[in-house]
């Protein structure tokens, strides 16, 4: 116990004496954590954004032309109960005519004197069901309902969105791994340089009979402390960026990561980074 306290006070003292190297490696860790946090934040928001974009996933349903208003409503409610349907709009003859007008710029009643368009519905899809394959099975389910003439969704758009989202997710994971590897390399390099400058001292320690563990522990503790300081710096910057973001994009809807999770994540990741990097580096000088 007293040894642990000794090592701890020792490494705090070491840090305060070699302030520049300690600060530099803390900054490197802070930058790493910052990039981590922002990448994670961007990732979470991208997924959120893509979900929002997918809100336009819609199934259009046409009822048989002989389906009357009341029967149409019944069909509409029946479809609403199908798994995967989030909500829907009932499309009556007038709505259909309006759509016709919007597309062809002609009044269908003016042309034919009657409204030949059928009742129908427009349904939005639950988040979990927004992929081409699940929507296909929903459509098939709707089609077999008595009184339904046809159900359609725009496959092309959805396929494209699907592809885009999975591309982004894939690239995101790749980038994540890349950032992770690069972080470790950068932090290791920084700490390695610090230890490189101390190799004479390390040699002296071994000549005095110090075991590898005895030499390692202070460096590992220093690494952890630098990780702590680094996570502190990164959190300060993150808080600043967060307020900045709110200030600039005030009205914009952004998914904010829970503070508790962000703070604990940063601290844990910082300490692990510092520990791992200093372990890796010191081991190179203690063959």
């Amino acid at each position, binding site marked *: 116990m*007293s*040894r642990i306290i*000794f090592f701890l006070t020792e490494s705090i003292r*070491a840090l305060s*004496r*070699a302030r520049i190297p300690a600060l530099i490696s803390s900054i490197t860790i802070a930058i790493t954590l910052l990039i981590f946090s922002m990448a994670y934040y961007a990732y979470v928001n991208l997924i959120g954004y893509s979900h929002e974009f997918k809100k336009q996933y819609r199934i259009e349903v046409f009822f048989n032309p002989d389906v009357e208003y009341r029967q149409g409503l019944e069909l509409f409610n029946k479809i609403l109960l199908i798994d995967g349907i989030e909500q829907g709009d009932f499309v009556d003859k007038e709505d259909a005519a309006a759509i016709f007008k919007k597309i062809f710029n002609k009044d269908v009643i003016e042309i034919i004197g009657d409204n030949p368009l059928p009742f129908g519905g427009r349904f939005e899809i639950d988040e979990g069901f927004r992929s081409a394959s699940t929507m296909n099975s929903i459509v098939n389910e709707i089609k077999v309902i008595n009184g339904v003439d046809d159900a359609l969704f725009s496959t092309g758009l959805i396929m494209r969105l699907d592809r885009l989202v999975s591309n982004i997710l894939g690239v995101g994971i790749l980038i994540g791994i890349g950032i992770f590897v690069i972080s470790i390399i950068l932090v290791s390099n920084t700490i390695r340089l610090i230890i490189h400058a101390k190799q*004479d*001292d390390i040699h*002296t*320690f*071994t*000549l*005095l*009979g*110090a*075991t590898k563990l*005895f030499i390692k522990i202070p460096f590992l503790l220093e690494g952890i402390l630098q990780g702590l300081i680094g996570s502190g710096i990164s959190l300060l910057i993150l808080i600043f960026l967060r307020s900045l973001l709110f200030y600039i994009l005030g009205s914009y809807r952004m998914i904010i990561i829970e503070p508790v999770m962000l703070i604990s994540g940063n601290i844990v990741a910082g300490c692990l980074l510092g520990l791992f990097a200093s372990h890796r580096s010191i081991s190179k000088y203690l063959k």
Partner: protein
Amino acid sequence: MIRFENVTARYTQETGIFDLSFAVAKGELVFLMGPTGAGKSTVLRAIIRDIPIEKGIITIDKTDVTKLKQRKLPSYRRNIGMIFQDFKLIKGMTVYENISLPLRIVGLSKKMIKDRVTKVIELVGLKGKENSLSMRLSGGEQQRVSIARALVTEPDIILADEPTGNLDPIVSDDIIDILQSTADKGTTVIMSTHNYPLIRPRKKRFIELNDGRLIHQ
């Protein structure tokens, strides 16, 4: 007891020590003499296993230290107190911390460390400098720290590499007195030096090297 048998340790083809054989008894104080580049430091570094030994055997008491496994080295070295020619102080540590380092490596209690360190600090005349960083000391003060660090563990062997180069003759003599008295208590001491006038009056055994070869013992 320290015994060299046909020891060769080279840096390059022509520099190092060659085919050295000599012995130093337990509790003996022996001087290692020779001009610059003779190989005095190399002999001491060979004993502490700081350089690879190419040939020959170095026996301490009954063990052949050239065959010691890497992981046995720390405990072996803890029994040796070495005063390095270039001091090898930890720059960022204070005098107290530097001197207490070997004791902390051994794992002594804080109180015992304090007792012992205070004693050697007084012995080498560094009282009042305990909390100075070692890089903020004069040359002679640094050398004293190095001497104190070697003495503090009360080791079985002391290897003193030119321990008085930055000290005046009176202090140097005091230091040799200290080494002599530790030898009298059973510690084997090898001290390298060029300072013939300093050791001449002592009429001690000396080992003389030149170009890495023994020329007198």
